[in-house]
């Protein structure tokens, strides 16, 4: 029952509160001003409590006030991983007494001493309050490391207030690799794919390069054991696809002299081939390197077929689905799709060229934010006015109110030409098979529950030997 129907409060208010801008007039890279924040019910993106589960055998301990704990503990419950989760709740009394260090040391000790088997690794999270109070975390970690020598402690942070410099996700990806074995020598035959919640599709053509080089590939979603996670410390290369992972890649380069290779999740043929060339050069592959131009043709054909199948559909893309939404929009536009809406709070500076292209070629393209407060009052329909709309991403599905959508989060492990072929297939299926998005998009961290179940039941896999 809608007691206050924001959508029927008069056109005047509706119009005034509408944040939509056309790309022709949109500022780049930040089209919208900061203000109050709305959080849509699309919950598929992974939080720090979810990505932590990717380290096999790890145990998370959060030290926070109750409002911060509640989200993470119930996330753990929902993903069926409460046995890998504990917490220390602090209150005003602890703050006033000024004994937060002691409280953490004793509380963590109590948790670990009560466990039947000590975890291999503890991800110990502190929150904004401890950092504003400037508690002595070095003392905390040093004491715990001395007390539990068989446990690796990784300092982790839930600091959303300090997001201006390091968003929680950016910081999280850096810390997740802090537990790899730092004593191993660099192995030129080992490569890590870092910073993805989802397994990078082993069908992706970059694996052809790894096979060609005879490399061992490791990535968090597929390392089956803690020992295998530790072995990630031997890699000579870290490959990442999302710019927020650059902080982690730089950290590993600085500490362990691993070479970072950034392969942005782009969609243009030329850019993908340039990525491949950069990867081949970094890996030191000698000619001939695998030629994927034919595969590029297959990807284009797949998009053409999907475009024909979706000729009655407008397309909306959100920035939580893919890391390069503008690049994807341009690619789809070039294949005849009716690109009508982009949902993004801001754009990566890397997308400027594609943005300017669309500004000229598709000036009527609607840009809408995802967390701006005005999005609460926006009508759940196609903002471009068309009838059918296919949404790529959960937030786009929610905001457009469509039943036609691709349930995709953070690239979903798709990369390169084979990624495009899979995306084209999923777009066609999304248009052919309407679904009620509510249940699907309300699930937190799309796929995390299955990932946790796999880690619990599947015997340790061999390292992702390509």
């Amino acid at each position, binding site marked *: 029952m809608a007691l206050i129907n*924001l959508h029927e409060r008069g056109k005047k208010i509706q119009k005034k509160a509408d944040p939509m801008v056309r790309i022709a007039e949109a500022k780049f890279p930040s089209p919208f001003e900061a203000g109050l924040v709305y959080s849509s019910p699309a919950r598929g993106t992974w939080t720090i409590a979810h990505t932590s589960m990717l380290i096999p055998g790890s145990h998370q301990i959060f030290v926070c*006030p*109750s409002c*911060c704990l509640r989200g993470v503990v*119930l996330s753990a419950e929902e993903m069926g991983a409460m046995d890998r989760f504990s917490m220390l709740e602090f209150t005003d009394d602890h703050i006033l007494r000024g004994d937060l260090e002691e409280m953490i040391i004793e509380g963590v000790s109590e948790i670990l001493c009560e466990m039947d088997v000590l975890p291999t690794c503890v991800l110990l999270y502190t929150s904004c309050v401890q950092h*504003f109070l400037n508690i002595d975390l070095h003392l905390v970690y040093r004491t715990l490391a001395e007390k539990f020598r068989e446990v690796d402690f990784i300092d982790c942070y839930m600091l959303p207030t300090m997001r201006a410099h390091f968003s929680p996700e950016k910081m999280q990806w850096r810390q997740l690799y802090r537990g790899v074995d730092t004593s191993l020598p660099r192995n030129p035959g080992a490569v890590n794919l870092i910073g993805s919640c989802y397994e990078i599709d082993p069908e992706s053509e970059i694996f052809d390069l790894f096979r060609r080089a005879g490399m061992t590939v490791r990535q968090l979603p597929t390392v089956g054991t803690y020992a295998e996670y530790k072995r990630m410390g031997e890699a000579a290369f870290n490959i990442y696809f999302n710019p927020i992972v650059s902080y982690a890649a730089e950290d590993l380069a600085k500490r362990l002299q691993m070479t970072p290779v950034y392969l942005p999740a782009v969609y243009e043929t030329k850019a993908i081939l340039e990525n491949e060339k950069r990867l081949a050069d970094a890996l030191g592959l000698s000619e001939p390197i695998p030629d994927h131009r034919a595969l590029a043709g297959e990807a284009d054909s797949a998009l053409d077929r999907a475009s024909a199948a979706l000729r009655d559909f407008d397309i909306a893309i959100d920035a939580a689905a893919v890391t390069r939404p503008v690049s994807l929009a341009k690619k789809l536009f070039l294949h005849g799709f009716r690109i009508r809406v982009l949902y993004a709070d801001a754009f990566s500076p890397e997308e400027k060229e594609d943005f300017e292209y669309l500004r000229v070629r598709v000036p009527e393209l609607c840009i809408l934010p995802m967390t701006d407060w005005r999005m*609460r009052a926006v009508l759940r329909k196609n903002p471009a006015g068309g009838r059918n709309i296919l949404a790529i991403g959960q937030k786009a599905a929610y905001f457009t109110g469509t039943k036609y959508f691709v349930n995709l989060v953070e690239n979903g492990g798709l990369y390169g030409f084979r990624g495009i072929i899979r995306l084209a297939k999923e777009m066609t299926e999304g248009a052919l098979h309407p679904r009620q998005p509510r249940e699907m998009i309300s699930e937190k961290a799309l796929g995390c529950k299955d990932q946790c179940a796999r880690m619990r039941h599947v015997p340790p896999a061999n390292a992702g030997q390509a």
Partner: protein
Amino acid sequence: MRIVKRVLSTYSADNFGFCSALYELGGLVVMHDASGCNSTYNTHDEPRWYDTDSLVFISGLTEKDAIFGNDDRLIDDLVKAAEELHPRFVAVCGGPLPHIIGTDFRAVARAVWRRTGIPSFGLQTNGMDSYVKGAGGALAEIAERAEPPGRKRFGLPGKIKINLLGVTPLDFSVNGSVREMEKYFEGHGFCVLSTWAMGNTLDKILASADADVNLVVSACGLPAAKVLLRRFGIPFVVGMPAGRENSREICARLREAAKAGRLQHAGQDRSKTGEEQDAGSAVSRVRPDPAREKRAFPAGNAAKDPELSGEEKQGDEDTEAELLIIGEPVQADALAREISLSGQYEKIRIVCPMAGLPEELLAGKEQLVLEQELRDACACADRIIADPLYRRLLPGEEGKFTALPHTAYSGRYYENEMPVLIGEKLNRWLALPKGPKT
């Protein structure tokens, strides 16, 4: 005291309770904090988020603003949103960091009120107390702004007019319990003027001071009941109409309280600020009459009744119980009373682990917080009625537990398993014998 949660969850926080209580009233409700609190609240604690519009947002506090104590951005953002959305009121509370830096939410609200002319209020939440404090505080603020009785005439002649206070999804879910509760009283000769605050508009709630008696159905409703008692002399009864006999008793107590009538000397206006006068909020403050409050309060409250609380039957040393109930105090009382009357169990122990409960509701109950204390309590009991997450305390003994999901504890996870306990439905749920023990 270290609060170590090895296997348990935590209760919903005060800032979430604040938002939950005000959700349907058409106000602009803002938590001042970084972004995480909003998604936690609307994912786990707000089952209305997808379907029912609201104006609940978070401020997106930044490190810079926190360090420099810059409240201007918050005020500017509130004013901007209020001027575009035209909410009925503006309400602001905060999370842990604003608490640490001492943000004055009442002052923020006053600044917003001055600039927009929209009634505004703030509550000093800290993200550390339980939802009871936040929801209770929010409803009390609404009660401070309720219109004096008689301005608008509601209700049916010959029927006792009541308000149901303390109704949020955190305690009552969205499983039909609220409507069932209203139907129950309507079917027993009462007229439900308003339900604070689900399924009613702000206007209906503000005009609810015509009630003969208020019924506090959860701990969240007690502060508002006290305000309405102080301002208008409306007596109140504490109790949740769950269980056949317990509900009948509550009806009897409501009639008795209504018959006794209003506190006569209520209604004297307290000194008001200019802004409050401008907004026409008829705020009155009188000293509560202890005798009247005493008369009004114990009705339906097992805590004050040794027979119900078992105070005579079990001393502090005797912690063994046949039945242990863990949960919200008013609901737990209702269950205990009905089960006690059925004769199914004699020794019933009630544990309320949430922080910030009003003292009056804790008599005869225990407030255990530590996991080991709760584990010990469960181990001593033959049967336990509690949120399913408490089953984790006794691995291998899950059979002792009867799951009673509580949104304020396990969030949305068990929302499809939440039973309706109103009236006889509790008896059916518990499979209790038909007649009371003779």
